[in-house]
């Protein structure tokens, strides 16, 4: 069973939302509705998230991703559709039931951290437990553990305004982890951080995920981040999910021009793996030699590094040690240049390349000086 399932979720703000849903189902466009005073934020979103997965929703601002996220824990009530959490229909729960689910099963990490400035780091981390009515000693113990997990041991008695942005978000993460919820909703949680810190946090999240195996729905507008974190990715545009798949699916088979234009800036070598570039192994290519090999899941960037050290195409071995493919250097170069054709043999004898000439000229100048 999926941990989380969204079935035909709609969210329309403004006048007569139910009517608007009906019209959207019948093919009306978003702009038509807007003229009548209704804003369709999310249109017909369906997906499912398996336990232990990181599901990333990627889209630009205004694409409806934050609205979608808030329907998953009932902060916003869907105009139509259902949210199933462990098979339980959240949309059928009353306010009190929803609060209970949010207190113990689903927690959330915010874009701007949303730490309570009038509470210490420890009290912030313990907030969810305090809401549940957990006794002080118990909740402080669990909050301390969560802070340790998030890398903030020793900062319990500090105040949020004494911490850097990255550390504040660690508190936010600890607060979400402290309740031991199964589902973590992360709303652009790393977007407000500096690039280096953001990378750190992404690494730490992946590290934590290996140990904790939470189910995470992660919202971002950064495709690189989506590719790094996401087991599966939904790309949203104008309220609709336009593509749903793995990072590789999206990079290699963009659903439309919009997605294609998006992936142009992605550092593909850090997303795609050896299996995406390898060629059929020809007998004797690398068989039997003791050179370095890679796994099918090795990132292309790492394959490049190996290839620089190996005098022949790099062998790709699966878990059982069988060679499942090889990656010649021409493939790697072609991959970086987005060229899929095989090299054409050259028809003229070797000449001095322009680069060599330039180098020599420069040396001459230096010698003259």
């Amino acid at each position, binding site marked *: 069973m999926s941990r989380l399932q969204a079935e035909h979720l709609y969210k329309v703000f403004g006048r007569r939302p139910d009517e608007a849903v009906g019209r959207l189902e019948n093919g009306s466009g978003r702009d038509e509705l807007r003229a009548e005073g209704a804003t369709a934020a999310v249109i017909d979103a369906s997906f499912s998230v398996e336990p232990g997965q990181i599901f990333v929703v990627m889209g630009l601002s205004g694409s409806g991703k934050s609205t979608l996220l808030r329907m998953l824990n009932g902060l916003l009530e869907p105009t139509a559709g259902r949210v199933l959490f462990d098979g339980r229909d959240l949309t059928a729960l009353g306010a009190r039931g929803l609060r209970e689910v949010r207190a*113990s099963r689903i927690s959330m990490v915010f874009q701007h951290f949303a730490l309570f400035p009038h509470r210490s780091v420890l009290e912030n981390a313990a907030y969810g437990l305090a809401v549940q009515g957990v006794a002080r000693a118990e909740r402080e113990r669990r909050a301390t553990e969560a802070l340790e997990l998030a890398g903030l041991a020793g900062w319990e008695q500090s105040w949020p305004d004494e911490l850097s942005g990255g550390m504040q978000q660690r508190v936010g993460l600890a607060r979400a982890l402290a309740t031991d919820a199964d589902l973590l909703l992360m709303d652009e949680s790393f977007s407000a951080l500096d690039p280096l810190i953001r990378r750190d946090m992404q690494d730490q999240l992946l590290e934590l995920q290996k140990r904790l195996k939470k189910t995470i729905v992660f919202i971002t507008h950064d495709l690189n981040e989506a590719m790094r974190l996401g087991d599966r990715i939904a790309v949203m545009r104008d309220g609709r999910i336009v593509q749903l798949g793995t990072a590789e699916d999206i990079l290699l088979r963009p659903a439309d021009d919009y997605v294609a234009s998006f992936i142009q800036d992605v550092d593909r070598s850090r997303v795609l793996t050896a299996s995406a570039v390898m060629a059929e192994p020809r007998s004797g290519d690398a068989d039997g030699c003791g050179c370095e090999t890679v796994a099918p899941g090795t990132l292309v960037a790492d394959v490049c590094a190996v290839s620089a050290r190996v005098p022949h195409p790099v062998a790709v071995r699966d878990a059982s040690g069988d060679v499942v493919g090889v990656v010649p250097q021409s493939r790697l170069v072609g991959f970086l240049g987005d060229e899929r054709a095989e090299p054409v043999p050259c028809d003229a004898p070797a000449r001095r390349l322009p680069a060599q000439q330039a180098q020599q000229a420069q040396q001459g100048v230096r010698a003259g000086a």
Partner: protein
Amino acid sequence: MRVLRIPLGEWVDGGVDRLQSGLSWLFDGISSAVTGMYDGIDAVLSAPEPLLFAGILAVAAWWLRGLLAGGLAFAGFAVIDSVELWDEAMSTLSLVLVATVVTLLIAVPLGIWASRSKAVSAVIRPVLDFMQTMPAMVYLIPGIIFFGVGVVPGIIATIVFALPPGVRMTELGIRQVDKELVEAAEAFGTAPRDTLVRVQLPLALPTIMAGVNQVIMLGLSMVVIAGMVGGGGLGGAVYRAIGNVDIGLGFEAGVSIVILAMYLDRMTGALGRQVSPLGRRALARAGAGAGGSRIWNHRPQPVVAVVGAVVLALVAGGMGVFGGTTSAEAGGAGDVGRGKKISVGYIPWDEGIASTFLWKELLERRGFEVETRQLEAGALYTGLAGGQIDFQTDSWLPVTHAQYWDKYRDKLEDKGSWYGPTSLELSVPAYVKGVDSLADLKGRAGEFKGRIVGIEPSAGMMGILKDKVLKEYGLEGEYDIVDGSTPGMLAELKRAYDKKEPIVTTLWSPHWAYSAYDLRKLEDPKGTWGTGDGIHTLARKGFSAQNPLVGEWLQDFEMTEEQLTGLEERIQETGKGKEQEAVRAWLKDNPGLADTWTPVPAEASNVSQSHRSG
């Protein structure tokens, strides 16, 4: 073309009447609750010795703001004590405290409600605008009808005036709390009420405390208005001072209000920082950074402060207990009142003050307990008709106060005139030559800048002046009548007189201005002002039946011009706040008068006995 006249005033008039008859139980309840709170707080505040209590307040300031603030607070309160306005200041403080507490009890929940509902906010906003901008006097008089004269309408007016910032700041403070924080609270399953208590209120607290501060400041600014309807305190002192153009007293009372205001302002500001978690954070950080001038900023530990305040309070309470037994006075043979309470109201006009304190002294000699209340004219009549005041001695009938008499005659007893005739007139300084009669004013408007300096437009004589006098003498169009106030008129007269500028003012006799300045009353050959009034004593309906002897005394009371001016002079010489001393001295110089005015019949004690049992 005539536009439809909306009878808005009539509706309100009718509404007030219906409310008064239909909801009197409610108003009585509110009134007694507020009075009870006020009396309680006032009793506590005025029990200790002034300087000891100043010490307690100074320790509070020391704790909240530091040594310098404590010292200044003590000095400030010492100033109030030294100008002999301590009791007034404590009354004002009680009034402001009661008003603030009630205001906050209403404003904070209302503000919270408004912050959670756009509809409520939209409905409340114009109501708040109305409350804040409607001139206080407009609802003070209905306030007297509902709540009776005294501190209650003053407190109610203060509440009405001070409520809007309390509501607004609470709403603003809560709405200002970061949306993401509220969402975070919800995302962790916090119930709405807990969100309010755990997140919104703590974070809104600095703004709410700023609102509390505003409420207190506005309350203090209302004390003068409250003084006009019998609120007493410093406001009463200010009102009395402007009524008599007593610049010195006005300034002293004004400075006392300023000292109270600054103390309350600084203390609530500091309290705001102490109470709110964010404020404490800021203080702790600032404290960590600050180095020098340690002593001035030194603040005792809360424990030390509390112990200090308690010790001072105990000492103060002890002194209050032991010092509070001096007031009982022997009744003696003439004691027919036996402590019965009588409430006398007066407008701070000289003859009113003189006759009121004369009666206070006379009745106290006869064993009554007399309470005097200084009121604005409209408030005085309303209070008298409502039965909160037993009698007043300064009613000018049949002309000047005719409007009040006509309105309330069914609820009043006329105990006859004790002085008369009075006269209304226009007067010019004696240095203005060639103007002896009203007729002489014609054609000389340029000299007087075309103005006749008048008093309150509500005053009876202003109506007569506009409707009859100007018309009869053909002065209409030539002179403008400047509506204003009695103090304003007197101040203008003083200014012009000192610079020897020509001026025409409305004036009446008896009036101290005639002894202070050399003025000439303009003759009225056509008799447009009418024959003079008598100064009447009016009692509430039924007063004489309950107090037959006092009724008789009042009925028989008479004063000659010589007696009245002599007494007025004596009061003026003795100075403000010592009216009764002046009366005593004056009675000493005029032996026998007291017994003439308040004769004790042989069977007096029996009368009062039987009266009590009946």
